[in-house]
């Protein structure tokens, strides 16, 4: 190749920078440029022009090449996928995890349960029916504004913010400013702790997937507004996988030996909220509902 191109120092310079492929193109370009000449050696000006053009194009293109990994996901300083930002689902799992038709104030939706139906034990079905029938007064999240628990907090129709550093990932949900800490420092679930509304979450990485193990979930939360329920034996394993910079595939496996016949799985995409300067605002459900309930009431024994 060197001999063919017949240049001295300049050849060495652009050889070091351009890869082998670049060299091949260069040879081709030079050949073309010199195709009108009787000999290559006589084609000095054209050869020089082509090489210089290629050299400077490559140099100037370097910064752009460095900045644009084609569809690469953002990474944190520790090399892990960087989930920082606001995320939200677009489906209707908040109303009903299973297939459902539209009704007043509820959109139709295709279910997110793998296999279609939640595998209840027969003894757990009456409670599901009773919950559904009384949902407007008994849904702990919609009627009482309690924290929705996991996985329901993920698919409430509100954004949530992921706040990530290497030892701790925090999810801050706009609904009722609910929040949970996912400890990624290798610590185990604590022994002898009571249940929490948002459970106890311990996370680890499997390659680029964040796997979160959730226990200690209070049995008073529902899985959706349709009254799907669980016991204090609920154990949830979530998986967060960034499929591209603006989407996370969210999967959750639920097992509860007192309520379901086997573990079952849901999945849905999380969409990054792209608006400029977007931030979590406040949905202070508890305050709104207190006003509704007690706004005109008088305390016991008041004059």
């Amino acid at each position, binding site marked *: 190749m060197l001999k063919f191109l017949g240049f001295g*120092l300049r050849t*060495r*310079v652009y050889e070091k920078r351009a890869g082998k492929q670049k060299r091949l193109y260069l040879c081709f370009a030079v050949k073309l440029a010199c195709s009108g000449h009787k000999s290559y050696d006589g084609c000095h000006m054209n050869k020089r022009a082509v090489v210089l053009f290629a050299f400077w194009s490559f140099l100037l293109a370097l910064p752009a090449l460095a900045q644009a990994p084609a569809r690469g996901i953002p990474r944190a*300083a520790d090399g892990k996928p960087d989930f*920082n930002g606001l995320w939200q689902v677009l489906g209707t799992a908040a109303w009903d995890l299973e297939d459902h038709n539209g009704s007043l104030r509820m959109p139709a939706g295709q279910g997110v349960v793998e296999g279609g139906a939640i595998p209840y034990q027969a003894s757990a079905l009456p409670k599901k029916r009773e919950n559904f029938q009384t949902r407007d007064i*008994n849904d*702990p999240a919609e*009627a*009482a*504004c*309690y*924290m929705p628990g996991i996985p329901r907090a993920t698919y409430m129709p509100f954004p949530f*913010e992921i*706040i*990530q*550093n290497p030892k*701790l990932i*925090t999810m*801050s949900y706009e609904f009722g*400013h*609910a*929040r*949970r*800490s996912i*400890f990624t420092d290798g*610590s185990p679930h604590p022994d002898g702790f009571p249940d*929490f*509304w*948002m459970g106890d979450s311990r996370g680890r990485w499997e390659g680029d997937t964040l796997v979160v193990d959730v226990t200690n979930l*209070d049995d*008073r939360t529902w899985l959706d507004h349709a009254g799907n329920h669980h016991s204090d034996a609920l154990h949830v394993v979530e998986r967060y996988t960034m499929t591209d910079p603006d989407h996370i595939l969210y999967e959750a496996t639920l097992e509860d030996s007192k309520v379901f016949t086997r573990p079952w799985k849901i999945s849905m995409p999380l969409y990054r909220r792209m608006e400029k*300067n977007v*931030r*979590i*605002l*406040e949905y*202070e459900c*508890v*305050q709104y509902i*207190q*006003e509704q*309930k*007690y*706004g005109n*009431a*008088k*305390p*016991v*024994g*008041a004059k």
Partner: protein
Amino acid sequence: MRRTLLHIAVASILAAGVLPSVHAQRAQDQTPAKWTPARTPDGHPDMQGLWARRGAALTEANAPKTPLSEFGATGQPYPTVFNTGVSTPQAAAALANRPAGVIEPANRMLPWRPEADAARREFLSNMIPPASLKYVEASARCVPPGLLGGDDRHPYQIVQRPGSFVLMYEYNHVTRVVYTDGRPHVGPNIRLYMGDSIGKWEGDTLVVDTTNFNDKTSFSQAIPFHSDALHTTERFTMVDPYIIDYQLTIEDPKLFTAPIRIAGAFAAAAKGNEMLEFACAEGSQTLPNIFGFGEFPGQ
């Protein structure tokens, strides 16, 4: 000759990139030994971790006596049990000797507008027994605490990312994201219990400007409300591995005729402590007890 020139050119470019940081390091080595914090990847002091806050209170001289404050300490007291980061007696003394509470005005007689002081005394007189829902103490209604209404027996967690500094309160699980990415405040009609915070670094001090408060949070037992004209400035400066100096300036022109300055500190929590969940409304029986009705299912 050309090859030589090229080599010199490349070497110069590389050196120009490296030299500034070498120069800075030497300059630092020459100054007298002063503790400097570890830094986050974007070059700011690393204040991340779990902290106990103290001193951040509107301590008022001659605060009006109310039944609230009379029995405030009668219920189960409990200590702040998670700080042992300050491990030597000298360091403990250093923390204890820092100023705390209102430092300006120095005499703690707050610069009330007379009509505002009258309004809050009137309000206080309706709180025991509470005349209606709004007169029930804010913390007993699980109102988000704003900047001063939090219970500092519960810790705070700081997380830093490029573009924001996050202060999480364990108490009532509120989260303040202070944006340091140059964005402006949200529009004036957006009103928030926790306000809207934007911050910038002045050297190693984070200066936080917060506006867009609503008027629904409480400052203290003696000052049960403020106005939506509230504007605060906070300054966070890490002074040693276990202490963040915290300065808070409050301006509420509808209540006070002058700004009020408060001094406080965040002290490092002992290793092994974690933020726990503090669900409020879910476990509170206060309103059903006061009003005699309205327990939610599961209570």
